[in-house]
């Protein structure tokens, strides 16, 4: 399958790969997986006291499109509020990366990952 230039760019130079301390109260962790293909994605955000995402990290074991989708999301969410981040739609990711229909589920996975990270952070704050 031919990947778009955008996907190849993120695949070859993934942004913000890494890990944050999941026990840190300011860190939200989203763990998601795509059972049909066995891809696993971890997306983490570090949130300021004002509720703004200061930093984001990801690690994805999966195809190029899944890696590119999560890499792109970590770039986008930096500087966003939690509400803005949880409103991100997979269609925006798919459009930016020019994903073919068979790879749309990779962008869905990235959307689910950022939502899960925001949820995890909010749950921690309620405690």
């Amino acid at each position, binding site marked *: 399958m031919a990947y778009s230039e955008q996907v190849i760019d993120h695949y070859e130079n993934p942004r913000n790969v890494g890990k944050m301390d999941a026990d840190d109260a300011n860190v939200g962790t989203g*763990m998601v*997986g*795509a*059972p049909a293909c*066995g891809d*696993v994605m971890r997306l983490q955000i570090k949130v300021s006291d004002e509720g703004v995402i200061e930093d984001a990290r990801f690690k994805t*074991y999966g195809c190029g499109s899944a890696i590119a989708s999560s890499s792109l999301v970590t770039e986008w969410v930096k500087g966003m509020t939690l509400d803005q981040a949880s409103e991100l739609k997979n269609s925006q990711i798919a459009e930016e990366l020019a994903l073919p229909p068979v790879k749309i589920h990779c962008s*869905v996975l990235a959307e689910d990952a950022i939502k899960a990270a925001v949820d995890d952070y909010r749950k921690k704050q309620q405690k």
Partner: protein
Amino acid sequence: MDITRNYFEFLGLPVDFEVDQTRLGERYRELQKQVHPDRHSHQSDREQRLAEQYAAYLNEALTTLKSPLKRAQYLLSLNGIDTLSDSRAQLDPMFLMEQMELRERAAEAANHADPEAEMDALQAHVGHELNRLQEAFSAAWQASRMDDAEVLVRKMQFACKLQQDIEALEDRLFDD
């Protein structure tokens, strides 16, 4: 022979996760003799085409019933549960976290003091996990706990993918 029957019935085996692999092999060979092209070469085009269809169905049946994961997926599909297409249903984060850690461990194995031993340990770990999931699936299936069975198949899909990834990594690390 009737290809409208499911793979189990087609092969004359009980519809169950537990499959007697010796019996499966025997039944396969018996049926294979019947559909062998040489037996049908003197027959009409239509009959030859039918024999080809039977042979193809027989091979699919064997491949499916031999593999624990494919067998489990197939059993669920007979019950109208599709585990092969994408689903947004998420598994528990603890399971995914563990899957992530095992993949990270595999990725770092090359830098390990004894990469071969590390890969063997990982293979053993994943193999053990797969056995555990298969036993749990078998129990869930027997008890008609279909929701549990579905979750277990999804977990098996991750574990099988990891197993394949580890095998591919081993090939890259040690075979050249």
